[in-house]
């Protein structure tokens, strides 16, 4: 077979018909995949959103507490005023303890105290320290 013959055969191949079933399969597959695409994209989007939601929830769950803020006296007073502190439970049998002399409060002098809150129990004092 010489070069001219080869070229001639190639030219004949140019006009050969394509199998109709091949064309039909390509059309059908292209059509199907084009119309599938929005669904698959929607699923991908939904999956991405769900994953993002999980990440945000995880971060919120693991987030450390708020940093301590120095509380000013009026704020504390305001905060405590509406709260009713329940009276301590009465112990019926024991005689009332002798009034003790006030003991020296150990903490007060050494640590700078910003707020001191007395409670009904004389032995309990809330000290808010810087």
């Amino acid at each position, binding site marked *: *077979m*010489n*070069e001219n*013959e*080869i*070229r001639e*055969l*190639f*030219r*004949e*191949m*140019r006009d*050969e018909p*394509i*199998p109709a079933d*091949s*064309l039909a*399969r*390509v*059309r059908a*597959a*292209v059509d199907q*995949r*084009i119309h599938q*695409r*929005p669904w698959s*994209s*929607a699923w991908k989007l939904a999956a991405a959103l769900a994953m993002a939601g999980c990440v945000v929830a995880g971060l919120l769950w693991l987030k450390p507490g708020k940093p301590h803020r120095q509380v000013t006296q009026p704020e504390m007073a305001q905060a405590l005023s509406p709260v009713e502190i329940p009276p301590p439970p009465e112990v019926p049998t024991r005689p009332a303890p002798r009034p003790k002399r006030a003991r020296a409060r150990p903490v007060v002098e050494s640590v700078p105290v910003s707020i001191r809150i007395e409670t009904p129990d004389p032995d309990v004092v809330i000290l808010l320290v810087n």
Partner: protein
Amino acid sequence: MGEIPRERADSFEQVLRQREAQVLRTAFRILGNWADAEDVAQEVFLRLHRHGLDFANDGVTGAWLYRVTVNLCLDRTRSRRPSQELPELPSLARSAESAILIEEKKQRLMSALAMLPTKERAAVVLREIEGLSTAEVAAALSSSEVTVRSQISKALVRLRGILTREDV
């Protein structure tokens, strides 16, 4: 979401109808079987759909389709495991009728074409079967005209060699 506008879908459909034979035939000549050619043709048209139809003219659309087709065929042949056995050329001896003889010659030529390196094969398919100019083939293969000329000339020499050897 994702639903293509009606006008664009119609013209995509039009391009698909106009160009499907071109794409399928080119892929078949390069890959050598219809199943692979169909897969490539599907992928080409999906890419066209994603790309959109904002081409300057039909020629540019055709060139774009040839380029994508050839690239996908090259990818596919690269990802295939190279076969050690060469395809068997059909025998010439059996047929007497000239139509059958020509058909057999075509089959033998296709088998010989399958033995060429993929880029040479693609160059021959685009130049000799699809009838593109050397410049168009160079654009489709992303190479120079000189390279294309050299590939085609080498390919024809190889084809002649293969077919002559088989004739003896």
